[in-house]
């Protein structure tokens, strides 16, 4: 490994801008850090170069721990967005700077300079001043300068940011060529996904200071694990579907779609599916489609982009309900599709035309949280709950929707016996109530598997407590917590609780369980948790901990419905008003690796 980052964290005024990033860059690899501005990617790059200290974690270059080594001694090559050439020096002096600092003999310096100028295809420009060169040429000089001292690692911070499209492409090719020729491990930071695709051996996507996913470009595009990556890398339509033992279902009809893989198939539940615009097929009638039909729509807008035609289609009722997007709550779903020239010739379209839509390939995100449904005994109750600021925020960040459902059954939930398995969308959201346990039990019997209980006051959790009652619920609770924490800027704390008066000999087992949980969360869900061990009654301890500070929430995992009443009655009765998410996974809950 040429660059190894181990749980690197950097805070500015208490806020983590780089949040627990672990990463290995291989020898000779071209690695691209991709993310929106403010995602912490540039800070991470500066930390690798040694220009920024880290608050936590280790950085090693080629096996040498350099966490506390100054930038000067790390000797990486760094290229900046604005070139950062020394304007009072000639091109030759710029390139030779690192050699002059190292007291390399003049003849050798001259030889190396010629070599580097040839490498970046700017021979004979040594005598010029940087200001006499074009932007693209200046950036080539900056690359040559960064390579002069033969660094083991090349770092590029948005190197094409200040250049126009044509030169950008040219320089991109040069940098890729130089990197291949020297086989130097390279990290490039960018917010441009085209650039990332064109250059990267592997891409790491960052958001809110976290490194979300790391994979080769094609894999990341075809099989993203998170909504953020799915929508950030190219255009994507997010759809709600149901995972059944027989396959994926959109609306009523089951559709057999190839490429829908990697989902939890053990139980029937709602999932989020990604449909890329180019995988949507358009035809005049459902019969003319070569792929499974999912609905009809009307062409709203057509944009010509050269090779491709981009089309926005307003889905008609039924199909539109499946679509997640900014307008999805109003039911006016807009589907993005794109067609090649050949497809356009075969079936010409104009705005207003009605089309049948099919999907050639979809990808199901492995996230356990799909959408939210606010439940209430009356319309007013349910709608008021759906406007709760915490819920609205969360749904917006997860790019999903909040449904509203009136369930008179909640009022007389005590006969919790009717396991009808009715269609319920995603996480059930409930308002705090005296008989809340009966309500949750009722919904779990109906087939709901996650319930979020919200107290009336608005809240922004800074700390998420996580606890599962037994091993059966462990893995799924972790998955839910990881999914939630990707969208909330909060720290995660796993609370382990042992009975009071546990003999000392058993305490070490408790500690082991904590550490195991922590490493599993890290490995399986890239979730960094802190851990705390407490002694006492579970419900009392959790209630006490929730009482310690205002902005907290709890994620609770159970594997049997009755556990809720038997073990946590005290928690719901006495806990101060904090959001509580209950994750219910019946039976054997270990997720296949």
């Amino acid at each position, binding site marked *: 490994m040429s660059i190894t980052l181990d749980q690197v964290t950097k805070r500015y005024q208490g806020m983590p801008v780089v949040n627990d990033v672990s990463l290995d860059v291989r020898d000779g690899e071209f690695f691209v850090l991709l993310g929106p501005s403010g995602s912490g990617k540039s800070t991470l790059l*500066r930390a690798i*170069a*040694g*220009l920024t200290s880290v608050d936590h974690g280790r950085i090693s270059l080629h096996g040498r721990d350099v966490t506390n080594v*100054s*930038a*000067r*001694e*790390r*000797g*990486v*090559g*760094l290229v*900046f967005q*604005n070139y*950062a050439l*020394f*304007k*009072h*020096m*000639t091109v*030759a*002096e710029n390139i030779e*700077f*690192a050699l002059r*600092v*190292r007291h390399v003999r003049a003849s050798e310096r*001259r030889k190396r300079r010629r070599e580097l100028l040839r490498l970046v295809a700017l021979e004979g420009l*040594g*005598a*010029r*001043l940087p200001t006499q060169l074009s932007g693209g040429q200046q950036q080539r000089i900056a690359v040559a*300068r*960064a390579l*002069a*001292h033969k660094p083991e690692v090349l770092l590029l911070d948005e190197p094409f940011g200040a250049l126009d499209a044509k030169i950008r492409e040219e320089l991109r090719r040069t940098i890729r060529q130089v990197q291949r020729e020297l086989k130097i491990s390279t990290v490039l930071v960018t917010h441009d996904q085209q650039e990332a695709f064109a250059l990267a051996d592997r891409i790491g996507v960052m958001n809110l200071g976290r490194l979300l996913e790391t994979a080769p470009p094609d894999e990341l595009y075809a099989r993203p694990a998170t909504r953020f990556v799915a929508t950030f890398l190219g255009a994507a339509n997010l759809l709600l579907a149901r995972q059944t033992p027989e396959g994926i279902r959109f609306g009523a009809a089951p559709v057999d779609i190839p490429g829908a893989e990697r989902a939890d198939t053990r139980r029937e539940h709602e999932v989020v599916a990604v449909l890329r615009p180019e995988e949507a097929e358009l035809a005049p009638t459902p019969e003319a489609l070569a792929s499974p039909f999912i609905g009809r729509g009307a062409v709203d807008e057509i944009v010509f982009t050269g090779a491709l035609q981009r089309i926005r289609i307003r889905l008609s009722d039924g199909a539109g309900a499946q679509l997640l997007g900014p307008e999805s709550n109003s039911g006016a779903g807009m589907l993005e599709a794109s067609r090649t020239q050949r497809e356009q010739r075969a079936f010409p379209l104009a705005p207003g035309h009605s089309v049948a839509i099919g999907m050639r390939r979809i990808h199901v995100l492995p996230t356990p949280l799909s959408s939210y449904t606010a439940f209430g005994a009356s319309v007013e109750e349910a709608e008021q709950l759906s406007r709760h600021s915490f819920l609205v925020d969360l749904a917006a960040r997860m790019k999903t929707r909040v449904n509203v459902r009136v369930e008179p059954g909640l009022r007389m939930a005590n006969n919790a016996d009717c396991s009808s398995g009715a269609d319920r969308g995603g996480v059930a959201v409930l308002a705090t109530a005296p008989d809340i346990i009966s309500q949750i039990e009722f919904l779990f019997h109906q087939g709901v598997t996650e319930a979020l209980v919200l107290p009336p006051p608005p809240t922004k959790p800074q700390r998420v407590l996580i606890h599962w009652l037994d091993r059966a619920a462990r893995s799924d609770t972790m998955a839910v917590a990881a999914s939630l924490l990707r969208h909330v800027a909060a720290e995660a704390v796993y609370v382990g609780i042992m009975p009071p008066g546990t003999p000392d000999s058993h305490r070490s087992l408790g500690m082991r369980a904590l550490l195991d949980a922590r490493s599993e969360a890290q490995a399986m869900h890239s979730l960094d948790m802190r851990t705390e061990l407490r002694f006492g009654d579970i419900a009392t301890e959790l209630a006490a901990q929730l009482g310690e500070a205002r902005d907290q929430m709890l994620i609770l995992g159970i594997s049997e419905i009755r556990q809720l009443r038997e073990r946590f009655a005290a928690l719901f009765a006495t806990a101060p008003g904090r959001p509580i998410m209950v994750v219910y996974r019946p039976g054997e809950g270990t997720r296949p690796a």
Partner: protein
Amino acid sequence: MSNFRQPSVLPGFGLTFGFAMVYLSAIVLIPLAALVLKAGTMQWSEFFHVILDPRSVASYRLSFGASLLAASVNAVFGFVIAWTLVRYEFPGRKVIDALIDMPFALPTAVSGIALTAVFAQNGWIGRYLDAFGIKVAYTWIGVTVALTLIGLPFVVRSLQPALQEVQSELEDAAETLGAGRLYIFRRIILPTVTPALLTGFALAFARAVGEYGSVIFIAGNLPMKTEITPLLIVIRLEEFNYQAAAALGFVTLVISFLMLLSINLLQAWGRRRMVAAGH
């Protein structure tokens, strides 16, 4: 001429150019010419007698020597102050930034009296310096202190914009390339701000040569020892010896002009070297 006549948002090149010429003539060129003419009414022997008088020569030495020294001191400490103001955020930064201009605003006589009070043998600072046998007030050191005070804003204000332009990225780049702090300062920061530093130095120097008000209080004005040229000119004027005053003024003018010219040439040479450098 056609080079000047670029199209511009403001019309009337002829009008503005004419105005600039008249204006400059009225307040700069004509008074200077009158000075030269007045000196020109003297006989050569008379002229040389006045300007080579030992008292005059001593005053040139003090005036130009102290001005050069003061401008040099300002170049160093003005750099430090400008650097602190540009590079760091600290409470009271704006206040200190505003204080820099105080010497501009204060009547120079006031600063002269204040300096004398502080640096006199029994003054707040003079008292402690006196214990080491250092006398400031009524010596050439006092003259230099006064000239340093009035020259400081020129250096700081010339340097600030230049330092703002040295992106910290340049230093980051040099650091990753293996340069130490001293090397970065010498090879990156200093060359970048040298033109501005020279400008500030030249302005501070020019201002110091012409300074009168603040110096006469702290200098003590002993002929041959602590008498500056502008004071000698005033003394000659009070004796109604206008010709001698004009002759001394003429000498000051010539020396100042030569020194400013050489600083400008130095700057131009620096720029040319930057452009023409190569291997």
